[in-house]
C-alpha cells in the first residue's frame, strides 16, 4: 500500500511536470506572439485617453468586459540644468502641458528652485 501511494504521487508529479513542459513548449513555439497589442501599434498615433470607458461586451454568463479609458504614461523633460525630470500622467492635457512647459519651469515634483 505504501509503495502504491508512492507510485501514485510520482505519477501525479510526472503529470504536473508534463503539463509545465507543454506550457513552455507553447510559449517557445511563439503562439503567443500572434496576439495583438492594444496600445498603439508601431506607426500609429499614440493616445493616452482611448475611449469613454464603455462596456465592450457582456458574455452569456454575465462577465463584463471593459476597456480602460486611459493608460498611465511616463514622460521626460530636460530641465535648464540638463537633468532629466520625469512625470507619469494619464490625461492628454496633463501630458501636453508637461511636455510643452518652459524649461525653466521644469523641476522635479519634489523640489523647486525658487
Amino acid at each position, binding site marked *: 500500500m505504501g509503495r502504491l501511494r508512492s507510485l501514485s504521487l510520482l505519477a501525479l508529479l510526472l503529470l*504536473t511536470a508534463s503539463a509545465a513542459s507543454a506550457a513552455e513548449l507553447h510559449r517557445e513555439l511563439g503562439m503567443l506572439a500572434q496576439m495583438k*497589442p492594444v496600445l498603439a501599434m508601431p506607426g500609429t498615433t*499614440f493616445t493616452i485617453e482611448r475611449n469613454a470607458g464603455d462596456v465592450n461586451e457582456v458574455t452569456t454568463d454575465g462577465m463584463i*468586459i471593459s476597456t480602460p479609458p486611459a*493608460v498611465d504614461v511616463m514622460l521626460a523633460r*530636460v530641465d535648464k540644468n540638463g537633468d532629466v525630470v520625469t512625470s507619469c500622467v494619464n490625461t492628454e492635457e496633463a501630458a501636453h502641458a508637461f511636455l510643452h512647459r518652459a524649461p525653466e519651469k521644469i*523641476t522635479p*515634483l519634489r523640489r523647486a528652485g525658487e
Partner: protein
Amino acid sequence: MRKLLLPLFALTLIAGSAFAGNGKVIIQNADAAGTGFNDPTPATPVGGNPGTTLGEQRLNVFKMAAQQWSNTIDTNVDVIVSATFAPIIRESDPCTADAAILGAAGPVRNLANFTNSPKQNVLYPVALANKFANTDLRPGEPDISAIFNAEVDTAACLGASNWYYGYDGKHGSDIDLYVVVLHELAHGLGFTGGANLRTGSLESNLPNIFELHTFDTQTGQCWDQMSASQRRDSALNTGRVVWDGPATKAAAASRLGSIVTLTVTAPSAVAGNYEIGSATFGADSNTTAVSGRLVVAKDAKNTDGPTDTDGCSAFANASDISGNIAVVDRGSCFFVNKARNAQAAGASALIIVDNKKKGDADATCDPPGMGPGDDDASDIHIPVISLRLTDGEAIKAQAANGVNAMLRIDPSQKAGASQEGYPRLYAPCTIDSGSSIHHFDVSASPNLLMEPYTSSDLTHGVDLTVYQLIDIGWTQPVRTGRTILRRGK
C-alpha cells in the same frame, strides 16, 4: 528512510506548484524584424545585461523586470505582456531634444462578474481576474499592453540622455529603463483605476477594485461610494486621498520614515502641527531641532523682489529676527537667496510661505520641496522649510500676538502617510501637475517605485507597491514546498 523521502519529495513539488502557482509574467515581443526589441545594432554588455545588440538589451531588461514581478506575485495563469519598443508617434507632442514620451503600460481589459470574482459589479484588471478564475478569461489576448519609445536612444530625442539598459542602477544622466518598466508593469497589474479625473465618471459605470480602496479622509468615503462630482473634487483634495488597504497601511508603518513638523504652541488661534516642505540645502531639519518666536522678515521693495516680505534683500528688522525663526514669502528670487539673507540677520531657521493656492497655475497645494536652483548653497547652515500658503497666512496674521513654535521630528507621523497612517495617493490640486490618484504621494520618504516620477535614488525594489497589489487581491508566492522538504530531512 528512502521510502519516506520519495513521497515527501513528491509532495514537496506538488505543494509548491499548488500554492506557489505556475504562472509567470511573460513578455511577448510584438516588434517587427529589425526594429525595437529586434534592433540588430551592436551594443556592448552593460551593468550585468549580457545583450550584444540594442534589441537584445531592451528585451533583457523587460524580461528581468517581468521576472521580478513573477517572483513577487502568485498566480496559476501566465500574465502576458504585449510589448513594443518602437518610436512613439504623437503629432501634438513630438519627441524633441528636451521632451519625450518614455513609455506606458496598462491592463488591456478590466473584467467584472467573472468566475470566482471576489466582488460583484467591480472591475478587476484582467491579469488579476485570471488569477481568481484560475483560467485565462481572455484567451488569445494579452493581459497588459506596453509601449516604450525607441527614439530616446537618438540624439534628437532628449539630447544626450538615452535609455540605460544595465541592471545595476548606475544610469548616470541616462534613464534607468528597468525602473520605468517595473513601474509601468505595476500599473498593468492593477496600480490604476478607471475613473475619469476631470468628470469623476467611472469606467463602464462600475467601480474598479482600485477605487474601492481610494479613500478621502475629509469626506470619510471611498471612491466607489461617491457621486461623480464628489470623485472629481476628491481627485484634487491634496493630502487627504489615501490608500486604505490594510496590507499597505501595515507596511507603511515600518517602511516610511518619520517626518519633521512645525508645532505652533501659541497663540491658541494657530496652535497645532503643520506639515512642512523640506530643502535639500541648509541644516538637516531631521537632525536639527529648533524652537523660538516666528518673526515676519521685512526687506526693501526693489528689483530683487517687489514686496517687503519676499526676503530677496537684506532684512530691515534684523534685530527682531536674530535668534528667532524668520518667515518670508515664496517668489521673485531663489530659495537660497532668502536663506542667505535670513542667516545674515541671525535667524535660527527660515520658513518660506508658498505663493500658490488651489486654482493657481502649477499649484500642487503641498508645501513645496526646495532645491538650490542655480546657486551654490554650501554656505547655508540654518534649517529652511516651507509652509502651505493657507497655513502661512494664518500664522502670519497672528505674528503680532507672538507666535511660538518648534521644528521637530514627530515620530507619530510617517512621511507620505495620513495622520491615521494610510499611505497618501498623489492628488495635486491641479491635474496638470501630473497623473492624479494612480500613484503614491511625492511626500513619501524613502522614495517609492509608484510615485509619479522616477527618483534617481530608487533601488530596483517593489517597496510598498507589492502591498498595494496584495490589497486588491494578489498574493505572494508561498514557498511551502521548501518548508516541507526541510521537515522531511
